[in-house]
């Protein structure tokens, strides 16, 4: 049983100093459940990040590259046809897309990959490793490694390599080595375990660019901070376009990096509703889904305490989602915390609902979203009828769908 959700989180719980606390915890979540071998590297990383954020030459370089290489700021786009699709006779919410799909490499992932690559260079690490599910984080990491001349090794589940063949080819073209992972379920969970084992072995010369707000402290904070630019820009753009804060933020959640990036700068503005959309796969009442917050229990995976899909003996369960990027049985610890204190809501949509939404957005807006992103769009059908006319809704359009066209074509052919 889950504890009931409190409706009014306390200011102290929302303060930046509580997310995470000095010992790397978001409430009970987070921490550093890793082999001792990695502890000094985690401490080094935390110190390096702290120093970097205070160093103007670092922040200037990051800013410059985000602008000239990544293509930021990304637009906040008013989706008029989608808005009118959900409009009722008396009106309806206005829907805006934060266009992270327009970033270099086609998703939000590069914000973090770029930041961490700059950190790795500051720490004198010449070899980079990363895990990837959909391949977006792998491509982003391979891209920045090419840009800075760093050796790059990507771990990817053999099953995901099949689903995301295009991204595997892109990584190779960018000069990265892609190591297939065949242990366990051959998906993101196992790729992450294998990346951690590589790091345990090569920690002295290697930096691990973890791709989500998961993993041991300081990663959930570090990755969030590099993605916080999404929310910061959104805030400015809302002010500019409609003169106030938005009412609702909507983002898909696998590990939860794009959602944390959008949510972060709004957490203390409690008038802003935040909704994370998980992958329900075949449905949350089947055993084929990836709805960790909706269905999980407290556990430890990949170095952090968070909600987790696990069996009655504490063995981690196989997740399922049509979207490789959401196919993960864990979730970032800060999301578990935001849910517990009642600051964010989490819901889940099925593979089928996501597919339908992908088609709808493609047809109405001329934007093919990634299957991950399509989960956020799919929640609109439940959400919009409940919102008053004039409600300003921001969706994080976290990635583009080119990589998914084969999967989508196969699925649609089956229907």
């Amino acid at each position: 049983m889950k504890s009931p959700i409190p409706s009014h989180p306390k200011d102290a719980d929302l303060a930046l100093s509580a997310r995470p606390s000095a010992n790397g915890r978001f409430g009970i979540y987070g921490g550093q459940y890793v082999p001792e071998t990695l502890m000094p590297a985690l401490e080094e990383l935390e110190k390096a990040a702290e120093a970097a954020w205070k160093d103007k030459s670092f922040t200037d370089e990051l800013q410059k590259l985000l602008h000239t290489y990544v293509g930021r700021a990304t637009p906040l786009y008013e989706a008029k046809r989608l808005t009118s699709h959900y409009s009722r006779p008396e009106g309806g919410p206005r829907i805006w897309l934060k266009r992270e799909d327009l970033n270099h490499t086609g998703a939000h992932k590069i914000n973090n990959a770029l930041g961490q690559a700059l950190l790795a260079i500051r720490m004198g690490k010449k070899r980079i490793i990363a895990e990837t599910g959909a391949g977006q984080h792998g491509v982003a990491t391979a891209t920045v490694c090419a840009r800075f001349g760093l050796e790059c090794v990507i771990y990817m589940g053999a099953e995901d390599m099949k689903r995301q063949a295009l991204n595997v080819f892109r990584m190779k073209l960018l000069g990265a080595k892609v190591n297939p992972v065949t242990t366990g379920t051959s998906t993101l969970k196992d790729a992450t375990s294998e990346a951690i084992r590589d790091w345990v072995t090569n920690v002295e010369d290697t930096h691990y660019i973890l791709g989500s707000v998961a993993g041991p402290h300081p990663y959930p904070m570090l990755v969030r901070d590099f993605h916080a630019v999404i929310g910061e820009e959104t805030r400015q753009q809302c002010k500019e376009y409609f003169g106030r804060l938005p009412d609702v933020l909507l983002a898909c959640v696998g590990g939860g990096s794009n959602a944390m990036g959008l949510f972060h700068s709004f957490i203390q503005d409690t008038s802003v509703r935040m909704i994370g959309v998980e992958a329900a796969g075949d449905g949350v009442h089947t055993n084929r889904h990836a709805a960790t917050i909706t269905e999980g229990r407290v556990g430890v995976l990949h170095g952090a305490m968070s909600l987790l899909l696990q069996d009655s003996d504490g063995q981690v369960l196989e997740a399922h989602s049509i979207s490789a990027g959401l196919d993960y049985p864990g979730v970032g610890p800060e999301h578990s915390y935001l849910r517990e204190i009642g600051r964010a809501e989490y819901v889940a949509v099925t593979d089928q609902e996501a597919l339908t939404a992908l088609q709808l957005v493609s047809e109405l807006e001329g934007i093919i979203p990634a299957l991950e992103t399509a989960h956020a769009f799919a929640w609109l059908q439940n959400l919009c009828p409940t919102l008053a006319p004039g409600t300003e809704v921001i969706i994080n359009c976290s990635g583009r769908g080119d990589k998914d066209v084969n999967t989508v074509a196969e699925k649609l052919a089956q229907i």
Partner: protein
Amino acid sequence: MIDNKDPLPQNSVSQDRISRRLRQLKKEGRMALMPFLMAGDPDLETSAAILLRLQEEGADVIELGIPYSDPLADGPVIQAAASRALACGTTPRLVLQMLKDLRGELFIPIVLFTYSNPLLNFGMERFCEEASKVGVAGLVVPDLPLEEAELLSPLAADYGLDLVLLVAPTTPKQRMIRISRKSRGFTYLVSVTGVTGERTVLEDRVQSLIKELKESSTSCVAVGFGISGPEQVRQVRAWGADGAIVGSALVKRISNAEYGCEADEAGVFCCELRKAAG
């Protein structure tokens, strides 16, 4: 289900069983031999037979792995053993039941090797209580570094279990001292920067790590990860270690053995290692 009627063991007797054994051996000029096996690989009945055979062939302490789906600190050999054990239905509860069934036959200290999540899921205190009831002497939790051990440490002590902490070649000296002072039973010195698995040679720095540990605290030191045979057992003995943990090399022999011959294979290997450990 574990029978709740068993009386709690005398804590004073139970705790320190491991370090007393290690110190006794040291006095005799010998080193403790600590084989590792995965419970339930290939099944629990076989594991029970192997445990008894290892005891018979002179093992001083046995490290018994509880299989977990995502063993971050383990290399391919122990990962595969865990997968086999899980596939045949091994659970923490069944491992404890097996140990309960062996009471009266298995006298040497058993240290359970388990990751955080199965422990957390079982309930830390309940796990300590039940492990203690079936005579377990200690716990090794490879993804629970010093800071995260704060919760488990007093619980383990309450139930007379030694919580063994690990130090690695990457651990800075001051931290190493703090860990070895907090560790109970012995300090587990991870001999390689890496995951479990056989290595052909032991890094020279293991010698200085053993020396530093022995100088900085009174804790016994057992070396593990990468010890693959008698030669390396002899090596760490010469370097002054109080114990040698042999995991992947034994697990591999067990998995390569014909069904029914696992205990014999394990026994032969243990006997070779025993000679090297003195």
